[in-house]
């Protein structure tokens, strides 16, 4: 296994971007911490280093889903708290990600994974714990809704 620091160097910004899309800026930091602590705990027992990025994004999405469950699926606020951090440019188009953040959980996760992280359908399915067909459907529904919202 490579030193864990290389996972942070290579993927921390992306994980943060995906989490902002999935849970909003206000809660992304907590989910980020939970994601990397969980990864650090499991890392020595991991026996396949061929897709560490996919592995991290899978954990990030479980944490995002946990977060939504813990919040009783209450709606994500439309206006996020102002950004204080200056070190991370994050996704460039805030309008789109705010709209993504307002999608139902499965659709939001599918869209964030596909376009935030560029994951193939099979990995999105693995991250969401559903079939590739269901992942494709969530993605499709999510995009349809986004088109309508942003039109």
């Amino acid at each position, binding site marked *: *296994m*490579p*030193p*864990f*620091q290389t996972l*942070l160097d290579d993927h*921390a910004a992306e994980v*943060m971007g995906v989490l902002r899309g999935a849970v909003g800026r206000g809660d992304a*930091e907590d989910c*980020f*911490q939970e994601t*990397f*602590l969980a990864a*650090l*705990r499991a*890392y*020595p027992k991991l026996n396949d280093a061929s897709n560490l990025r996919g592995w991290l994004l899978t954990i990030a999405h479980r944490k995002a889903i946990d977060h939504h469950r813990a919040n009783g699926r209450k709606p994500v606020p439309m206006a996020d708290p102002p950004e*204080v*951090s200056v*070190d991370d440019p994050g996704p460039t188009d805030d309008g789109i990600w705010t709209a993504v953040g307002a999608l139902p959980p499965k659709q939001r996760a599918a869209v964030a994974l596909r376009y935030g992280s560029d994951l193939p359908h099979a990995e999105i399915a693995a991250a969401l714990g559903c079939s590739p067909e269901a992942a494709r459907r969530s993605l499709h529904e999510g995009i349809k809704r986004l088109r309508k919202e942003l039109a």
Partner: protein
Amino acid sequence: MKTSLDRLTERAEAEGLLDVAYASVDSPFGPLLLAATPRGLVRVNLPNYDPEETLEELAAKVSPRVLEAPAKFERARRELDLYFDGKLTEFDLPIDWQLTHGFRGKVQRAIKRIPYGQTRTYTEMARSAGNERAVRAAGTACGSNPIPIVVPCHRVLRSGGGLGGYGGGLPMKEELLKLEGVL
């Protein structure tokens, strides 16, 4: 303001997940990479070796939970600065000896006890480690010292007075001996 990564390192340490912390520290010879476990300093990488390779080696031999954590090395940084200024003669840093074993380990522990400004020969080191005839093995032990400078293998010379070898290059060994007033 604390960054996400600082916070992560702190939480990892609090949960006992920071198996190997590392940081780069400046020296007159170039950047040194220091690595420590919760038990102590486990590795010093001299400037002429690739730090990436050393981190990979630590991930394989100690634990893959390797994180950059400069805050853990404030004392080591201070002591090294003083040492390179000629103002510190003995490091007071806990050491983790887990990367040394057997006869080499014995030689390296004996090297740690050579006082500042003094030198020993490879033969003397072999004797301190309990086998006077294993001079060549004592040389190998010096050459494979995982914690150079703090474990002062630069104080070990050839019997005839020659400098012998040094992982960081002979000019560095010479400079360190000059700093300590030996040359």
